[in-house]
């Protein structure tokens, strides 16, 4: 290695080239969308794997996300003396735009992203991916595209689900602990609800799904050297997905939700 380039510079170059190769994989996955018709079975399988098995997890985190945001908002409303009939408005908007998409995505990066990276990583180090190549079957079409697409499709669906559960959780806390009626709370939610916000939240969810899917696949494909290598790739897939989710959340916010 060239020692005149300081360590930090080398790290930065390595990181940028890593992101570059992730983008390349993304383009290849999108290119293989042309084979969606004959890969439907694979895609549906993946949607099922990602969606169905994530629902219990989403229910649990969403109840508590809704509950704590209601509690926290009421606490702050009391401090600044805001009328509690707006509690539902504040909580509803926060859940739909920010909390449900981001927190669901972070948890699913752990569940789904890690699962993809570990599965593909194991396939890589046991030559299963080479075997696909050797049979003239594109591993990108057969493995990456269905997983990527399933993440992009399923994240928004799971987030819609998370929205309902979180608002129900918030409602329970408001009724039992904050002392407002459920009508007041729901009127507040309705008052602030906008279709555009909802779409914004869905767009975020789809983006986060793309991030989880593509990094899971990319890190899995790069795994080398056996069980240890698969472990390293899996960890990295989760960490990089979480960081990218939060960065893209900010970028989407300043583009979609102008002040």
């Amino acid at each position, binding site marked *: 290695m060239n020692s005149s380039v300081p360590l930090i510079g080398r790290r930065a170059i390595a990181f940028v080239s890593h992101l570059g190769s992730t983008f390349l994989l993304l383009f290849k996955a999108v290119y293989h969308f042309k084979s969606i018709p*004959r890969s439907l079975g694979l895609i549906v399988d993946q949607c099922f794997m990602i969606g169905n098995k994530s629902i219990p997890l989403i229910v649990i985190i969403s109840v508590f996300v809704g509950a704590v945001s209601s509690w926290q908002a009421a606490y702050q409303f009391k401090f600044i003396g805001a009328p509690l009939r707006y509690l539902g408005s504040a909580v509803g908007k926060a859940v739909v735009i920010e909390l449900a998409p981001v927190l669901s995505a972070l948890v699913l990066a752990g569940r789904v992203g890690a699962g993809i990276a570990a599965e593909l990583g194991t*396939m890589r180090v046991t030559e*299963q991916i*080479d*075997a696909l*190549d*050797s049979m*003239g*079957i594109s591993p990108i079409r057969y493995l990456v595209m269905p997983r990527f697409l399933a993440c992009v499709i399923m994240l928004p669906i799971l987030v819609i689900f998370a929205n309902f559960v979180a608002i129900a959780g918030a409602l329970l806390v408001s009724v039992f602990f904050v002392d407002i009626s459920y009508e007041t709370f729901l009127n507040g939610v309705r008052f602030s609800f906008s279709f555009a916000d909802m779409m914004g939240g869905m767009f975020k969810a789809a983006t986060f799904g793309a991030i989880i899917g593509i990094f899971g696949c990319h890190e899995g494909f790069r795994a080398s050297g056996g069980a240890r290598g698969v472990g390293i790739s899996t960890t990295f897939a989760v960490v990089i997905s979480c960081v990218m989710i939060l960065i893209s959340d900010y970028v989407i916010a300043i583009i979609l939700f102008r002040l």
Partner: protein
Amino acid sequence: MDTLIKFDNVFKNFGEKEVLRGVSMGVAKNESVVVIGQSGCGKSVLLKHINGLIKPDSGAVYVENNNIGTMKFKELNTVRQNIGMLFQSAALLDSLTVGENVGLALKEGMHLPEKERREIVAEKLALVGLSGTESRFPSELSGGMKKRVGLARAIATNPAIL
């Protein structure tokens, strides 16, 4: 006789380690070739050059007079469908059954209908002495059985090169 596979002065290093140093050879149609050498001398690496799983550092590999290194991805896949490869570790897809493994190239590469696939799979499994194991998973097989399933998969498409 026409040469089916040709290696032209192929070099391959892994980091500092020199594995292939100027390999040139030709394999004719219907010819059987045995590559012998010490463990770790580069036999598997040599084989993986034939279907482009590994690209040479310099030199070129030709299959039916097409350069594997400069081929488009699509053409490469077509060539690969004509090459059966048995991996040292068998490399069966462990999420698929034995039957699905053997029939994989027939389904995803050649798009044969289900019935035809099932017949070919049964025929090839019979050839390797594993009739009736279609619905078992690779994890339920012994090492030798996995190897034989790998062989059945490699010959499923009746490739010209094995």
